């Protein structure tokens, strides 16, 4: 996805990520959420159809104790039952082994005399629950493999976006007329801005997008007033959904068109 497409104009090189971004900006919703949804879909397909028997993937999954909630449920798709069953069986087996290992009594009793005396005269204390609980946690560096891929691609897309908000053939106008980045992606874009110009362009464009959205929200509120409720709904009709997407991001089907709904 990051390979150059070979379009060189005025000394700049365009990566395919640039075109991905340009296309995503022309569609509804946060372009990064849309692109990352696509990355996640493709990566899940890749894992399910190509890597189920890859020992590295299986080790990563055992370390992360399976997938995160979002990507775990994204595994459920037609034709994936065998692959999912194999992956889940492996992780569950590993967890059971951890439970067995953590609850097995030590071969040599290393506890102090006082502890043993207390056990003989009173209720035995539970085994080291903290240790057992820890054995069920994801191991060090254990991150959902799909999340890891999404983070890598997200960084690439954000850098390309920041690079192309200024200069010739920039994406600034496309950004202003789009739904802009959602707040979580804006937060991740801001620390990657390497110049005043890039940050200024990003914030200026984002401000325009959100001011428009804020006006639409005011219009929704106004039209809920009994005096204006007979006025027809305009482009503000789905602002209530867009405002949620703008503040928290969205995990949507990348190819699904959005339908305007009247509140």
């Amino acid at each position, binding site marked *: 996805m990051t390979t150059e497409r070979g379009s060189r104009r005025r000394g700049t090189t365009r990566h395919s990520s640039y075109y991905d971004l340009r296309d995503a900006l022309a569609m*509804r*919703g946060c372009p990064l959420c849309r692109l990352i949804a696509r990355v996640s879909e493709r990566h899940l397909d890749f894992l399910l159809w190509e890597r189920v028997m890859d020992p590295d993937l299986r080790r990563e999954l055992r370390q992360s*104790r*399976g*997938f995160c*909630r*979002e990507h*775990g*449920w994204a*595994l*459920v798709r037609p034709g994936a*039952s*065998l692959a*999912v*069953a194999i992956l*889940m*069986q492996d*992780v*569950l*087996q590993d967890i*059971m082994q951890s439970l067995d290992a953590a609850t097995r009594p030590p071969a040599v009793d290393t506890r102090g005399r006082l502890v043993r005396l207390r056990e003989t005269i009173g*209720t*035995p204390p*539970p*085994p080291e*629950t903290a240790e*057992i*609980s820890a054995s*069920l946690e994801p191991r060090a560096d254990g991150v959902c493999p799909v999340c890891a891929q999404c983070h890598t691609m997200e960084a*690439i897309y954000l*850098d390309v976006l920041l690079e192309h908000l200024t200069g010739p053939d920039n994406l600034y106008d496309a950004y202003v007329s789009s739904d802009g980045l959602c*707040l*979580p992606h*804006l*937060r991740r874009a*801001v*620390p*990657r801005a390497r*110049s005043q110009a890039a*940050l200024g362009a990003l914030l200026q464009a*984002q*401000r325009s997008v*959100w001011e428009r*959205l*804020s006006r639409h*929200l005011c219009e929704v*509120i106004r039209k*809920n007033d009994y005096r204006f409720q007979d006025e027809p709904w305009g482009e503000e009709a*789905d602002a209530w*959904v*867009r*405002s*949620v*997407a*703008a*503040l*928290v991001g*969205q995990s949507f089907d990348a190819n699904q068109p959005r339908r305007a*709904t009247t*509140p």
Partner: protein
Amino acid sequence: MSYYDLRDAMAQSGCPVCRLKDDAVRRHLDGLLWESVNDSGVRHDIREARGLCQQHAWQLVEGGSSLGAVIIMRDVMQTVLRILDAARFQPPPPSLRRRAREMLTPGNPAPANTELVAQLGPQARCPVCLHAETTERVLITTLIEALRDQEDGLLADYRASDGLCLQHLRQALSLAQTSSVFDALIGVQRDIWQRTLQQLSEIIRKEDYRFRDEPRGEETGASRRAIAALSGPQIVTTRQP
């Protein structure tokens, strides 16, 4: 009350704590929309959290639009816009260490604009998450107490259920203060997951061309049960664009 809720939830599919937590969240969101939109304390908490978390924000509007949700979202959006209005560029601190880091990991540069990022970030936790966690703690404590009770306990119901998910098992284990509760949790959960493992093996076996004509039995849905056990319940929100 949570004892009977837990008993009823154990008779249904999935982790009982997840199910009851989800019910509590839905009731809380209803209360937020219909009772608390103009409560200044609630609005302050939501502004500080920079809105609800992704899951709860989408749940807030899953029943359709409401004036309450629009008012809440506009409030947060205005807060964020005010932060953008005051934003100034802040380069990453110049240091040899930073340059070395950027050279070694070009895809992961040193962060710039740290103050702005901090202001745009949540200053408090999502209030609905906080409510959900409180509910979760009460439910797990009730479960632990009920497992301690030999006569009116929930051991039989727990054994017949789909068990706890991995996350809630971890929480329950950290609260188990006696050997009997600990043994009940580990013993029952091991049996339930062993059953799921066998069902997964059965799915794998029946994918083999030699056995693929055998009728499907109780292993149907075991993959979903395994995902729910490991990753938590599926989030169903109908309003996502």
